[in-house]
């Protein structure tokens, strides 16, 4: 892995060429145009994790002090008491599920904020519609073609001199990334290469044939995408990825989320110009057999927590550049259902982790869980619009400032959770 000092010593382009087996086209072009683009400049990176399936915010971060909760959830109620699951008390009102304990230090250190009662003003309880609205950033407009993260990338105003500006560690491009700005979906960095049954020499020859064909085609769009593909492939020297060693003492869970975050860490440390990264986490739709301190939700929360904690520790010197934010399309019912679980609700909670976050607090406008305060008599109502959090984090961390473009049709106020 090329380190920054070595790079400085031997001079940019030469080392680049030596390390990557040829100067990637876009570097040469940038040099030609004398664009002010420093290949190894540290970028601010916003990492988003979408928990698909509707995470139960009321169990992840429980308002245990509310007397209504126990009545609503006779067998799913948890609190700091040993007999009730040994939750970790946060502020006398909310407590953290024990499976999330690896995130607790970030909370006490003031690096991590929790926002509760957050969600969408659109009360659809359809997973797919709600995800669509949250990712497009326009909860009442299905016709919005772009995703909010694609718009955010566009607003950073940096020259798109790298194919890695917006990267999603998923097989398909997520809705959040739809739009005019370049975005890349790679489910596995190690596979980001021409793959063929045959010898490495033959594969390399085939790759070169492809590269030439795409270089010569008269179709502008195929020509451009082809160049970027091969530039990206050259930058991602798969051997470096295969041999990657996380920072001392860091163990990523061997789970899809753990792997995704590890690869995001690799991309961050490779200084490839990434500004937005995206990962997904599934299995949150706990209608049946949710469990409490032990069980389906607890397992998911543990993987979630340990993956994020490992990621943060692995970042080491890059922590200042990164802010991580989680989100889920809606929450779950305040009451438990007849099969040991919870059904689709409204508000949930989310986590924001970063050195420029005013952490150590559970931001919320939650009244109570009395029936009169529940939406439709069943759900924790949305008292914080998700856009007020997304815009605050994106604006604060990526230093952009155009909410009209980022969240058209909103016109609301940002939540004050980032340090000035």
């Amino acid at each position, binding site marked *: 892995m090329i380190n920054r000092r070595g790079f400085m010593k031997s001079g940019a382009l030469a080392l680049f060429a030596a390390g990557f087996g040829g100067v990637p086209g876009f570097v040469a072009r940038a040099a030609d145009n004398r664009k002010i683009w420093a290949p190894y400049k540290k970028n601010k990176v916003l990492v988003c994790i979408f928990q698909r399936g509707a995470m139960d915010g009321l169990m992840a971060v429980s308002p245990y002090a509310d007397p209504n909760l126990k009545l609503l959830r006779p067998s799913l109620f948890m609190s700091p008491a040993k007999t009730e699951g040994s939750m970790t008390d946060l502020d006398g009102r909310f407590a953290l599920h024990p499976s999330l304990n690896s995130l607790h230090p970030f909370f006490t250190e003031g690096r991590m904020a929790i926002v509760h009662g957050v969600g969408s003003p659109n009360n659809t309880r*359809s997973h*797919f*519609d709600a995800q*669509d609205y949250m990712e497009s950033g326009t909860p009442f407009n*299905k*016709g919005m*073609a772009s995703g909010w993260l694609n718009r955010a990338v566009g607003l950073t105003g940096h020259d798109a001199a790298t*194919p890695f500006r917006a990267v999603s560690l998923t*097989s*398909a*491009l997520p*809705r959040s990334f739809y739009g*005019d700005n*370049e*975005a*890349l*979906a*790679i489910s596995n960095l190690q596979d*980001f*290469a*021409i*793959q*063929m*049954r*045959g010898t490495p020499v*033959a594969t390399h020859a*085939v790759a070169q*044939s*492809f590269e030439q*064909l*795409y270089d010569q*085609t008269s*179709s502008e*769009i*195929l*020509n451009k*995408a*082809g160049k*970027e*593909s091969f530039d*990206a*492939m050259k930058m991602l020297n798969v051997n470096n990825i295969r041999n990657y060693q996380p920072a001392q003492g860091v163990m990523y869970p061997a789970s899809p989320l753990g792997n995704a975050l590890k690869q995001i860490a690799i991309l961050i440390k490779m200084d490839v110009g990434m500004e937005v990264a995206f990962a997904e986490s599934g299995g949150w739709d706990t*209608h*049946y*057999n949710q469990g409490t301190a032990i069980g*389906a939700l607890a397992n998911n929360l543990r993987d979630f927590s340990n993956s994020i904690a490992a990621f943060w520790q692995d970042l080491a010197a890059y922590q200042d550049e990164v802010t991580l934010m989680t989100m889920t399309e809606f929450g779950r019912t305040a009451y438990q259902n*007849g*099969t*040991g679980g919870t059904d689709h609700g409204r508000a949930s909670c989310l986590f924001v982790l970063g050195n420029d976050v005013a952490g150590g607090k559970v931001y919320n406008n939650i009244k109570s869980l009395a029936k009169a305060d529940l939406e*439709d008599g069943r759900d924790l109502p949305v008292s914080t619009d998700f856009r007020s959090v997304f815009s605050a984090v994106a604006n604060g961390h990526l230093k952009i400032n155009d909410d009209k473009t980022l969240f058209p049709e909103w016109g609301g106020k940002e939540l004050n959770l980032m340090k000035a």
Partner: protein
Amino acid sequence: MNLKRMAKTFAVGAVMTVLSAFAQTSHSSEPRIKMPYKKTGLDSRQAAAHLLSRFSFGATPGQVDEVVSMGLDKWLKQQLNADLPDDEVNKRLEGYNTLDLDNSTIVNTYLNPGQLIRVLIMQHLIDKDSLQSAGRKEYQDKLHTLMVQAGYKPMQDLQRELINQKIIRAAYGQNQLKEVLTDFWFNHFNVSLTKNQCEQYIQTYERDAIRPNVLGNFETMLVATAKHPAMLEYLDNASSVSNNNELVRKQENNIQQLRSKLQLRKMNNNDTTGEAGMRLMEQVMNAQKRQGLNENYAREIMELHTLGVDGGYTQKDVTEVARALTGWTPAPLYNNGIAKKITDIAGEERMKKQGFVHEGDFLFRANRHDQGEKTILGRRFPANGGYQEGMEILHMLATHPSTAKFIAAKLANRFVCDTPATALVNRMADAFLQTNGNIKAVLITMVNSPEFWDQKALREKVKSPFELAISAIRATNADIQQPFQIYAWCMKMGQRFYFYQAPTGFPDKAGYWINTGSLLNRMNFGLAFATEKIPGVKLNLAALNKKNNNFTLAYAAGNNAMISQVTGILIGSPEFQRK
């Protein structure tokens, strides 16, 4: 609705039907095919190649020459008639057993997980406690066994057959234009397997509402989709309710009277008979009260299906159309559901008397319909229009000039280029209007236009992943024994067909399909396909290249690998991404 009024409506309706039929016969005949490709400097071979590349899923080896010798006009006419025998497809679909089922059978055999759990609990085959203690895999296996024992089948079987048949028909169908248009119109009237409530209906939706109409009349297709359970569920019209309804008010009064009667009976003789039934009725009433108007379908039918987003409708129009379409619901088919029990008890006669309309799997529920007067696109619809009102509105939308333009533009986008010339679109829109939405007429008008044959339009479009995969199969005469594997690659390349969440359907723009990641996947697809690394793909490249001496020599030298790699490169090459 009294007899006199009914007679009037019927009479008006009958007159309108006669008039429109008259209109159709005098204007709906299609223009003669007269393709001006010589004018744009193309020879017949180039023209045939272009025709095949746009109106089929890709030429098979030697097909360009076949079309030239047959005559381009004749080939196109054949494709427009779409009645060539499909022996290959039928052979490959042998053993598929969900493709001919009706909705009732499907709904009662292929349950979604939620329904399955409820049924099994009802039948005491599982209890809530056993659910709590089982681990996830154990739990799934147990469910599966119980499901099979109880006579149900898994939803995945239904989905797999739907996906596979699309691939088989596109790759091996003789009526290629029909397959291309089924893909196009399904996408236009998109529904998605991602939505639980409608997934069971998608098989029949494509088979009955879309496919038979793709080369027919636009309004017929629009109405077929508007009445199909898949669309009614997908865009939530099934649960859209109005409380501005006479029947509902009467029902509430009846319940009020019944309640008082029962209370009196209980007070006087401590008699509680009838209370359970009463509670059921109240439950249904309250459930209905909690629901409200849902504008989703009303908006999309105008924005996406007919007028287009700039078609000149307002938000008020959306609300009014939503009001008009209240009551348009899927007929209850699920035997274990309350809805079916209620309609069974009510009976056809009583429902008809109250203004309900039951047509196949469609049920117009008069007691959910907003009876008030409405104004839509400047036209006044008087109160109590009932079911006919909805039909008139669909007719108005289907024959509106904005619709003609919108549909013409979409077809031109699909078959000509991503930014079609205004003159061409206008010409096609005129054909649409003059023939009251005859799709063939619009297509012929398009093919008779020089813009279709413009050298700039040649190979200008980029194939979708599905089109790439099918064209690769056709170009190599490949034998696909596991169609699902092809679907898996389409997913990898970015097109999980049948699963596009939004009603807009997959965008038809090169920029949507081509990005850094997806292009790499296309190249890798080419290689995996050609080297038979995809399970179930059988190629005979030697047979294809019999006439090519270089290839023959290469094979003689045992260099199969090289041939496969070259084929792979060809499939992944930029030129093969274009059509």
